[in-house]
């Protein structure tokens, strides 16, 4: 695997979409500066924070239970227009997304990293940083304020770096779309199957799968 330099990123961004090697990053603001080959970051593209967030809600039970219904109950959607800001309290988390919509060709993988200056405020933006080939969508950011003070986030500001890597021995080709989150443009709540189904697929009998709800009610 080799990391793509700006020159190659720019070349791919300018390919027609029917070309399997084409790369999309939109809106790519301050395009000229961003794609300037002589800039300091010759191997990455800076990404901005989007304007939509999912704020975790305090669940009605004393735990988060990843199951089919969790998407319906776990978050409040918030819009923070450009110019406004969101406060993330100390040690709290929020789901955001990049302003940019990304489409990777089948011969590229990506990794999203916290911009170094942002990282120095003890902000973590990503816990699932790997971006698979053929991915498309705004990148969901699992933002955590790991510091002891509330953090102000301005949508539209630079927050992340995208690094692109060429897969070895792979030719770019068009492939079918897939994935649970098809080309998301806002942060989306997690989608899970019920544990009983996940574990059933590897042979765990239904009768052995304990439900926290039953235990929670029996403890009460």
């Amino acid at each position, binding site marked *: 695997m080799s990391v793509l330099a700006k020159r190659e990123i720019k070349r791919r961004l*300018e390919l027609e979409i029917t070309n399997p090697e084409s790369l999309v990053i939109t809106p790519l603001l301050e395009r000229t500066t961003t794609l300037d080959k002589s800039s300091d970051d010759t191997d990455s593209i800076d990404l901005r924070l989007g304007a939509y967030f999912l704020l975790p809600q305090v669940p009605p039970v004393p735990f988060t239970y990843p199951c089919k219904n969790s998407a319906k109950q776990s978050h409040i959607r918030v819009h923070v227009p450009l110019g406004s800001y969101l406060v993330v309290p100390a040690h709290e988390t929020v789901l955001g997304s990049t302003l940019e919509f990304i489409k990777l060709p089948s011969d590229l993988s990506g990794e999203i990293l916290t911009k170094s200056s942002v990282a120095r405020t003890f902000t973590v933006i990503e816990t699932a940083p790997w971006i698979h080939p053929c991915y498309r969508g705004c990148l969901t950011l699992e933002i955590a304020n790991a510091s002891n003070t509330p953090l102000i986030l301005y949508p539209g500001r630079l927050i992340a770096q995208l690094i692109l890597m060429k897969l070895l021995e792979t030719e770019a080709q068009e492939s079918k779309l897939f994935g649970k989150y098809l080309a998301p443009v806002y942060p989306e709540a997690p989608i899970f199957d019920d544990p009983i189904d996940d574990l059933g697929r590897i042979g765990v009998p239904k009768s052995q799968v304990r439900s926290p709800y039953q235990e929670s009610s029996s403890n009460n």
Partner: protein
Amino acid sequence: MTISAEVVRQEVSELHRLIQPLVKLCTERRPDFPTYNDTSREFFMHIGELGRRSLTYLQTLPTKILNQKYSQIAASNRQKLLQLKSDWENLHQYIQPALDADTLHLPTPLIAALHERLHEIGKWRAHRFTLFHASEVNYFEVPSGIVRRVANGIASQVGGKPFPKFLGLIGIPYSQANGLFLNCALAHEMGHFIFQENEAQPVQEKVDDALERMLTDLGVSLDEEQIPFCRDLINSWVEETFCDLFATCLIGPAYSFSFSQLVMASMLIGQRDGEPADFYRFEWEHPAEVARFYSHRKMLERLGWWAEIQDWSSAPVEVLRICDKPTSSFFTVEVGGQLPQTILQDRLLQCYNEVCDWLVNHLPSRVKGSAKDVAEFKMQSPIISDYLRRAIVPSTIIAEGRVEHPRPVVLINAGFQFWLENLPLLLTNIKGEPRNSIESRSRIGARLELWLLKALEDYPLLTKGDS
């Protein structure tokens, strides 16, 4: 008869009690969440200020009434409470629905794009709209004079500012707030405001001329009630058509497609001529749908859009193909009142058609910019389709080696074309997505609308900043 001080204080405090929660709703919102468009904030600020002034006015009113030497003046001041109450009851119906319509519960990028398009036309640069959630599945503009009259009635009584100039109110079905395609019908509602504020007079003159010609031709005279009846009826139909054609000039065929969707006009396809009868019926509030689609088609031909869409194999275009004549022997007029005996229905419709023909020629000079839309649509639509079938937001496209950012009208119409003609291509392109499943079509159609709304949202960033 003297009124006890207690009665006066009680009735004034009851009105105070009615208004106070409305003031709180408008003025004590969190500054950060939910967020509102500028026009909604302007509406809340105005109503909140009117409310505050009303409360101050009510605070001193009992003293004014009770200390008044002349009983008639005291009675008159007391009577004003009724008007104030009635005016606030009138405003009451819009406040919570407008509060419900925050930026997450409206097609905000579409609304911004429609405003931008409208503001390209110099004379309407100051016109703007506050949206509110409507409980019915319909779009409507609150006639501009009504809200202004009510708000200004309160202002004149309690000492407030006049209602903001050129601010209109539009209702949008609350369930459709996150979509794109159906909401293109908003352009029609903007047309009502433009008509009422600026354009009614020349149109009404044309109606009067046509009516006069008809009466001269028929050699009949109408009495004092019949003339306004006929004029109001044709004016009502013509205003609807004006708004349709205004919307078509503003956003192209997308408006006609959204209207087609709203009234389920695809029911006209595969039917015998004249069926379903509902689509051939002129009612007081609107002309027959078939007549409206005919006008859409004429305007699309006039603007050059028709040449781009006439070969589409989709239902709304087929509807436009079916509605290819201005008249039909199946047209009926049901207007809840008697048409004068001497006026033949056909002649009345002929009057209406004359004015519609004039509108088709007149409006493009008022709502300019279509030629550029058509030319860019022709070039960019196939490329946008290539992006959408790959589930990619088309805010930046590569066309003949150049980086381009399609303008909103192009995005909306190309998106509509993709939805109407090519959605199966996208479904086929997604692993495990059944092409014929209604649920899949609906879900992926909603995704498509999100991608287009995102592209609309990106457009101003890409074209106004240093991009």
